[in-house]
């Protein structure tokens, strides 16, 4: 058990070092841009993992929260001249609060009804983004959103943003991981596995569901804001139900409950459309088929229990001649 943890840490450190040096070696702007998008969507996938995978709340309308964070920060910085650092943070808090309110309204909803509400909420947000023209500029979207900046320094190149996004991803990853390993994370998992037993263990289930939804939405909102500061344009067409399902699949593909899995799933689903333009058109079909195949063969995702990750892990063990009782991938 001890050896595994150290190995896991070594791999993480290697990956981070690799990520730090990557843009110095690969100078292709397009490639860096794709990786930037991957970094941002990874945080979304992590937040989905926190809500859906850890706490078992099936949210199929995540994109709405990205939009909320995006528009909040865009409106603050473009229309009110609020500096980036402030608008970014406020966008996150705002989205977290909306998450708390929605969570509060649904606190007594059972699993299926919660999902229906999130779908409805997604549609409502989209309609609001498109039609509240005085606030959001409607179909025109909001332009000339400033690049992330503080103290006069602008992260306005792909490479500078790369490091900003990488730092953001690492920070979010560490925070979410720590939440998962704490009493909070255990309470979330207990609610997922058996809400009644959780209640009888002294957990105020309604309260913790609201907290979970709120924290997850905070991260989603921050990412949504970061996205539009990167592209410098906020469009109401980016926060559809299709987007939500695509984002959900990023977390599912890698394995709900597995944080590295979220990164892997996101990478696959962000990189593939870039590799093949025609894939982009068929991406929803692909995702649909992928969902069915995954449910049949790897129901816990690639890095979840009985997934590809475990198969590789156990193959390596067989090769090294070790016998181990009950392997579990984290």
């Amino acid at each position, binding site marked *: *058990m001890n050896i595994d943890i150290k190995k896991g840490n070594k791999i993480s450190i290697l990956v981070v070092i690799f990520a730090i040096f990557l843009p110095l070696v690969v100078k292709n702007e397009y490639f860096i841009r794709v990786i930037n998008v991957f970094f941002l969507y990874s945080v979304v996938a992590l937040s989905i993992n926190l809500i859906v995978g850890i706490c078992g709340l099936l949210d199929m309308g995540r994109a709405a929260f990205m939009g909320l964070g995006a528009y909040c920060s865009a409106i603050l910085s473009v229309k009110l001249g609020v500096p980036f650092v402030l608008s970014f943070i406020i966008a996150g808090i705002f989205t977290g609060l909306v998450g708390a309110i929605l969570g509060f309204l649904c606190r007594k909803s059972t699993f299926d009804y919660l999902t229906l509400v999130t779908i409805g909420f997604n549609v409502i947000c989209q309609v609001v983004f498109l039609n509240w023209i005085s606030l959001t500029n409607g179909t025109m979207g909001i332009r000339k959103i400033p690049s992330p900046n503080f103290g006069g320094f602008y992260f306005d190149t792909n490479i500078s943003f790369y490091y900003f996004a990488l730092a953001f991803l690492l920070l979010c990853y560490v*925070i979410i991981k*720590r*939440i998962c*390993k*704490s*009493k*909070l994370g*255990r*309470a979330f*998992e*207990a609610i*997922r*596995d*058996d809400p*009644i*037993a*959780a*209640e*009888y*263990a*002294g*957990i*105020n*289930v309604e309260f913790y569901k609201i907290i979970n939804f709120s924290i997850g939405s905070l991260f989603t909102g921050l990412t949504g804001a970061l996205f539009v500061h990167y592209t410098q344009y906020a469009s109401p067409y980016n926060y559809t139900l299709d987007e939500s399902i695509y984002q959900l699949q990023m977390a599912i593909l890698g394995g709900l*409950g597995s944080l590295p899995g979220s990164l892997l799933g996101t990478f696959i689903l962000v990189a593939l459309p870039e590799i093949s333009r025609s894939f982009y058109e068929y991406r929803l079909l692909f995702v649909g088929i992928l969902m069915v195949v995954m449910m049949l063969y790897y129901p816990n995702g690639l890095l979840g229990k009985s997934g590809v990750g475990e198969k590789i892990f156990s193959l390596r063990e067989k090769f090294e001649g070790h016998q181990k009782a*009950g392997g*579990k991938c984290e």
Partner: protein
Amino acid sequence: MHFGGVKAVDEVDISVNEGEIFGIIGPNGAGKSTFFNVLTGFYKPTSGNIYFLGNEITKRPVHEIVSLGISRTFQNIRLFDQMSVLDNMLVGMHLKIHPKFNHILLMNPNKIAEESKGRKEAKSVLEMFNLIDAANSVAGSLPYGKKRRLEIARAMICKPKLILLDEPSAGMNPSETIELMKLIIKIRELGPTIIVIEHNMKLIMGISDRIAVLNFGKKIAEGIPTEIKCNKQVIEAYLGREDDSNVGNF
């Protein structure tokens, strides 16, 4: 406790003394589990009051009642199947572990003092219940008997004043049942008052100080085991009228 026209628990008036083992028996559908559900706040009673240690707890939510010192197990074992045995125990200690929020964010999880204290406690309880070898196993993968033990261990870990066991021997063979009896007696030594719902007559007669009998939602008898054994109404409830041939089998 009325559900529409069905009186699931009809004016059941029971008083349990501190430190005793109190049994509740009755045919299936008598309202025993419903009684537990009402007691613990899972259902809000349509009429009547519940008192615990002198305080009224009638309309409080479950997690609040639990925090007052009441624990329970379930007829169909309720474990956190995807979590490890140790984590199940740590969830059981939810009310006793209080890490500071800034610690959660800023410190390495392995170094937080509250967490390691909790883990130590959880491990020692697992040892007491003979489950320490399975500490890192996924709870859902345990054999049935161990699952039941884990559920009881989890209910015991926060040192409740009252523990409710709902048909703990369901699905067990005779030797497992004897182990269970020993376990319940061991639990009693740790302090709590115990209320047990059971169908297994040997078990309930063997461990209870007093027993209440429910049928069709009503309490039809209450007393010490030897009285209950011979109570005509109780025998009728289980075996039906005009059939005295099985009286001796209790």
